């Protein structure tokens, strides 16, 4: 990732943008924090938030007209937060605070002229910045509306504490201004004053409040909003500061007044609650309740709906930077590498984000970079890629025209997981397609998605190239794909092929004869590969309706479907998080799930929730498909290779048996505990058989003094497997298995 790219990604994520109220407030008071503290009854702390920003806080908090209310997101959910009432209540209730510590004197003098609020605020702001400022007025704050006893006096005292001087009873004339211009580095006149006296200097500039007389600044005239008058005072102070420093009067002033913010806050689950309105002043309960209505605006749309984004505790803007920083660390950190490899690449965040932030784009690019620079941790995807290699190996690959035919109009492409998980239904589906369409060939092959997801583009290209050879050798027929991921991948990587879903075909041709009927209510799980394929989703729903399923849509469905946890190889790279994702999805609905990706089906089934693949309804094999457990890794491999052999034998009368590897003839069984460990630790039956074969040759093993079990190990390629077992007749009973990648080179000494 280049730095320019990082900035683009960071900019897309709006989580750190200011809330609407802060942006709309001409003084940018942190109303969100203020409300949070008020809701906790922490009146003093809340007052400090106001006093930090407001000039003459005791006065302004009582006069503020709350322009933030027009921008408040709560407006659409009952009514804006009554910020002005909360400010008044807080001003009455909280302990007053001392004015802020002013900056050191800078040796520049400013005269402020006028009886209005702008003059007072300009004086305050300039005194804060270390200017020698004198307020020239007839009555300080003389034009202000009535305030409770002592309030103005206290703030005028604070003004003096800040270092300002007040000269009252002054007769304000044009000549007086000339004198002040001579004696000071800059002069600011209140809007009320210059209307009457200074029309020759022209309208003050909207951005700088400067006039035709350089060094003389003037406030806006006819302004009635208290907070806008105060903001003008602050703007004047900013201008005077720039002027006396001799720096640009204009650059970087976009955020001085109210501005637009990109922060997006969803009102989706927010209940409408009306504001607390009473006659007179709020009570403590009123204040707490009204402040409690504040939504504490933030975005977090993607994080709210993704277990993966939630898991790493932040949000995409932070993640993008973490991933960027990770690239400059030699091997990457465990945390960041794991985060990069845990994204399901499912596209949900991009769909929900108001600015289309795509974690998938960031993470897939990062994976590719890691693979290219040889810093991808081998353990992340190796097992999955070995499985793909097996599915594309001689034991599993099958490419044939329909029995008795020498050309194919169609080609059935079930994908590598359906054959692994539900081989009998694949056989039935193929038979059904041949019955309906006649010249339908068969291609058993993986589409290559695991290679793409793991960032291995070269391997992906190689896989697709092999696939293309098989497809072309069969005459380039129309491909009927059953798996949504295969559909998506084939569309992208075989653009010259016509690819159609099995569901579209069935919708056109009618349901198979053995279809189950009237299955009751089921929750539909759209696989993430179907996110942008509305036609596919519709075809499936139409079929389910024909089958008699009452389809219940989860809240996150269709375009906003949540991934089951297998996407992007999450469950392979980060099994714990994958399981958490699957559990969250499974628990979303009370009904049994129906889906059209067999990995979704198995991920949900593994959590203990009942789930069926649509093939279970169309080509039923089991009595109770919903309860069928997800096949383990070893069984998946056996299913694929047995399916190939069976089809070759039954349909093409060929003996597909390949030379039996010596290790395959070793008889081995597993205790219940051992079976569970095999799955968890991703150790295959064939791995164990290889260990035993090696032991038969080497005769090397340990024995346990306690229980008489034996222990042996073998390293076929890059992983060493350890097997604890007992001898059982001709074969072995396995009690325990573990593995490691580290290699024993030699014993020293």
């Amino acid at each position, binding site marked *: 990732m280049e730095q320019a790219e990082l900035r683009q990604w960071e900019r897309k994520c709006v989580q750190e943008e200011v809330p609407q109220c802060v942006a709309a407030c001409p003084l940018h008071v942190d109303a969100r924090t203020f409300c949070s503290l008020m809701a906790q009854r922490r009146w003093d702390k809340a007052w400090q938030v106001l006093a930090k920003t407001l000039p003459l806080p005791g006065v302004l908090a009582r006069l503020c007209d709350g322009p933030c209310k027009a921008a408040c997101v709560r407006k659409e959910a009952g009514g804006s937060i009554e910020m002005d009432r909360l400010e008044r209540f807080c001003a009455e209730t909280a302990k007053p605070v001392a004015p802020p510590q002013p900056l050191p004197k800078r040796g520049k003098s400013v005269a402020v002229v006028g009886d209005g609020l702008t003059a007072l605020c300009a004086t305050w702001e300039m005194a804060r910045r270390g200017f020698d400022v004198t307020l020239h007025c007839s009555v300080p704050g003389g034009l202000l509306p009535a305030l409770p006893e002592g309030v103005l006096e206290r703030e005028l005292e604070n003004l003096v504490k800040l270092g300002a001087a007040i000269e009252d009873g002054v007769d304000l004339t044009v000549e007086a201004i000339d004198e002040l211009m001579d004696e000071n580095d800059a002069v600011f006149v209140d809007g009320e004053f210059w209307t009457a006296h200074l029309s020759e200097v022209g309208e003050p500039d909207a951005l700088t409040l400067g006039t035709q007389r350089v060094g003389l600044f003037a406030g806006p005239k006819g302004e009635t909003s208290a907070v806008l008058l105060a903001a003008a005072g602050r703007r004047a102070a900013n201008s005077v500061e720039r002027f006396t420093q001799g720096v640009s009067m204009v650059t970087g002033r976009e955020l001085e007044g109210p501005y637009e913010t990109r922060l997006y806050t969803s009102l989706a689950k927010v209940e409408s609650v009306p504001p607390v309105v009473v006659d007179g002043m709020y009570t403590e309960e009123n204040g707490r309740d009204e402040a409690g209505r504040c939504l504490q605006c933030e975005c977090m749309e993607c994080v709210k709906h993704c277990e993966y984004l939630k898991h790493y505790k932040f949000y995409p803007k932070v993640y993008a930077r973490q991933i960027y920083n990770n690239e400059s660390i030699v091997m990457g950190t465990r945390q960041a590498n794991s985060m990069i490899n845990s994204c399901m690449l499912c596209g949900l965040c991009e769909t929900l984000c108001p600015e289309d932030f795509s974690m998938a784009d960031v993470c897939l690019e990062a994976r590719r970079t890691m693979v290219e620079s040889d810093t991808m941790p081998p353990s992340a995807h190796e097992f999955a890629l070995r499985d793909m290699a097996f599915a594309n190996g001689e034991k599993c690959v099958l490419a044939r025209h329909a029995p008795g035919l020498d050309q194919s109009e169609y080609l059935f492409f079930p994908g590598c997981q359906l054959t692994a998980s539900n081989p009998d239904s694949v056989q039935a589906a193929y038979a059904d397609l041949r019955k309906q369409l006649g010249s339908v060939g068969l291609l058993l092959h993986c589409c290559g998605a695991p290679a793409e997801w793991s960032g291995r583009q070269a391997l992906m290209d190689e896989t697709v190239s092999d696939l293309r050879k098989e497809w072309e050798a069969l005459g380039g027929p129309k491909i009927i794909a059953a798996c949504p991921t295969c559909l998506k991948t084939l569309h992208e990587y075989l653009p010259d092929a016509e690819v159609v879903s099995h569901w579209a075909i069935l919708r056109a041709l009618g349901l198979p004869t053995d279809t189950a009927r009237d299955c009751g209510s089921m929750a539909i799980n759209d696989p993430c590969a179907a996110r942008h394929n509305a036609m596919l989703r519709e075809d499936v729903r139409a079929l389910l309706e024909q089958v008699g399923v009452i389809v219940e849509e989860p809240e996150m469905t269709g375009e906003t479907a949540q991934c089951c946890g297998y996407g992007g190889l999450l469950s392979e790279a980060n099994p714990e998080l994958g399981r958490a994702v699957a559990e969250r999805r499974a628990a979303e609905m009370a009904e049994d799930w129906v889906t059209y990706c067999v990995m979704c089906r198995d991920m949900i089934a593994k959590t203990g929730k009942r789930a069926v693949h649509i093939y279970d309804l169309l080509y039923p094999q089991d009595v109770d498909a919903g309860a069928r457990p997800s096949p383990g890794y070893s069984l998946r491999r056996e299913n694929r290779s047995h399916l190939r052999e069976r089809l070759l034998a039954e349909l093409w009368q060929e003996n597909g048996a390949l030379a039996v590897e010596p290790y395959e003839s070793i008889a081995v069984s597993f205790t219940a505990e051992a079976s569970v460990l095999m799955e968890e630790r991703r150790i295959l039956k064939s791995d164990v058989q290889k260990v035993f074969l090696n032991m038969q040759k080497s005769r*090397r093993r340990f024995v346990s003094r306690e229980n008489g079990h034996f222990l042996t190990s073998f390293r076929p390629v890059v992983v060493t497997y*350890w097997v604890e077992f007992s001898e059982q007749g001709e074969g072995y009973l396995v009690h325990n298995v573990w593995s490691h990648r580290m290699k024993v080179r030699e014993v020293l000494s």
Partner: protein
Amino acid sequence: MSVIKVPEADAAGWKCATCDEELVSRPVELEYLDSLFNVELPTCPKCGMVLIPENLALGKMNQVEHLLEDK
């Protein structure tokens, strides 16, 4: 390179069945991703077969492997 002693590397009741010998602690060279380590591991004094017990393989060894893969 100095030898690392690891408490988890104990024989845990295993002995060499081939040689009928108790296992003794010997320095063993381990390798992963171009990094080498000398660790004392239970070894058969006669045939040199090295034991990597379960808790070591799944514990410290796994941690080191990840450390070398990432940072």
